[in-house]
């Protein structure tokens, strides 16, 4: 562990990237077990939204296609249904690998990653987690909409109004101050430390 991601220096096929993924990405140690059967891509409910299915993406990782892998939208369309995980005959934890690769692409600053709906949504969601210790469905949604700019946020909020109104009527929208845990400070200390360890281990 603990190797920084090597520079590819313009190489299209960089096996150093493949090795780095095996050693540093969550579940990556199982990637070499992949036999390219395609059970994952065939089981994926949302494969049509992905520019590469998981099977192909894994082959690209093996081939060291760092740029193509990290610019892929595959990781950000995963719904975390875990069909691929339970069906993989070689026990590759596909979902975990995609989830962590998505973070790596984001952290390395790839615009293709950072501008996805998923990355924006996760940012807003985690803001609520850190601020209150819980998910405030109203506030993080507002923050997510605002990540697209004020104009777009207003459009999105308007489109969502009928749903919001019906949830409010059904007493399923929390009104009033956000629920906040007592241990917010303690939770943030734990998260800071966990981020520090992850950075130490993964290098990104």
């Amino acid at each position: 562990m603990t190797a920084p991601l090597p520079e590819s220096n313009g190489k299209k096929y960089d096996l150093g990237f493949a090795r780095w993924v095996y050693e540093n990405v969550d579940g990556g140690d199982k990637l070499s077990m992949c036999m390219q059967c395609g059970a994952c891509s065939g089981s994926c409910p949302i494969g049509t939204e992905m520019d590469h299915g998981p099977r192909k993406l894994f082959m690209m990782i093996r081939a060291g296609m760092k740029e193509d892998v990290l610019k892929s939208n595959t990781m950000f369309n995963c719904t975390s249904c875990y069909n691929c995980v339970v069906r993989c005959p070689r026990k590759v934890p596909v979902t975990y690998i995609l989830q962590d690769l998505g973070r790596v692409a984001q952290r390395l600053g790839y615009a293709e990653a950072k501008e996805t709906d998923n990355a924006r949504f996760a940012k807003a969601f985690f803001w609520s987690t850190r601020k209150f210790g819980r998910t405030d469905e109203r506030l993080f949604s507002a923050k997510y909409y605002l990540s697209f700019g004020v104009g777009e946020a207003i459009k999105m909020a308007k489109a969502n109004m009928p749903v919001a109104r019906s949830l409010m009527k059904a007493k399923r929208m929390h009104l009033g101050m956000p629920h906040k845990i007592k241990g917010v400070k303690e939770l943030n200390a734990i998260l800071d430390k966990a981020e520090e360890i992850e950075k130490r281990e993964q290098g990104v």
Partner: protein
Amino acid sequence: MSKKYTYYPGCSSEGSGSHLDISLRAIAPKLGVELEDLNDWNCCGASVTHVEAGALPTAALSARNLANAQKQGNAEVVTSCAACYLKTHQTNEKVRDKPGFKDKINEALGAAGMSYDGELHVRHACEVIVNDVGLDKVREQVTKPLTGLKVAPYVGCQTVRPFAGTDRGGEYDTYDDPEFLDDFIEACGAEAVEYDAKTACCGGAVSLMSPDKTLGLMKKILDEAKEKQADVIATPCPLCQQNVEMYQAQVNEKFGTDHNIPVVFYSQLMAVAFGMDPDKDGCLDRNTISADVVKQKAGG
């Protein structure tokens, strides 16, 4: 005789999934299940935070809950939310089985003077009903059977995937064709229709961030329920419930369908079948598509 569990309600219990939490708390005593709230519980990160926070900080969220549960003393943590179950179970399993993980997670917890030793059992409320309570006990509680109510048993993903086995390695159900929900429905006196979309994905959190990509997934779930003439769809998952209910108007708009089918939790069906107040306990007044058909069939 009742058994005490530490209960982790999860964030949706305070908003969009309040009807799951309230109805579960209502039926629990009847099933001999005593739920003691997890002290100062926090968000599990669901299928979302990993992209922003990373795998270890996301696991640390569950670890803080587990550390607090350990202090609380009950040997079992039970949650009714699919995502809370997955994340908490996953972290628990990693602490126990993944080399080096326990040290890392305890280093993080140590920043707040906390620790977790990996000894607790994390369980889903449905699994507790299957294995600890038993269907006989569910049947015994039914005073107003939901006779003639046709229900599509929609389990969704994360209630059984990837953790359909209990964390003791015992039986719970299967990944692709789980039967516990059919059993619950029939124990309540209703009819569970054959339902191939049982473990189809509703899009999960992607439906919240980019519904355009997943309306087709929800259409499949709704189409089959309609084709099988189900009166209601029943589910254990708060996100499935919310997505499949609230996006029906958008599905109709996009595909020209005319779906208007209520989506309820198994615990709402049980509360009504147990003769409890259909609104106060069964929370039928919290469904945005009227689920009064459940009330009408009760005791009929």
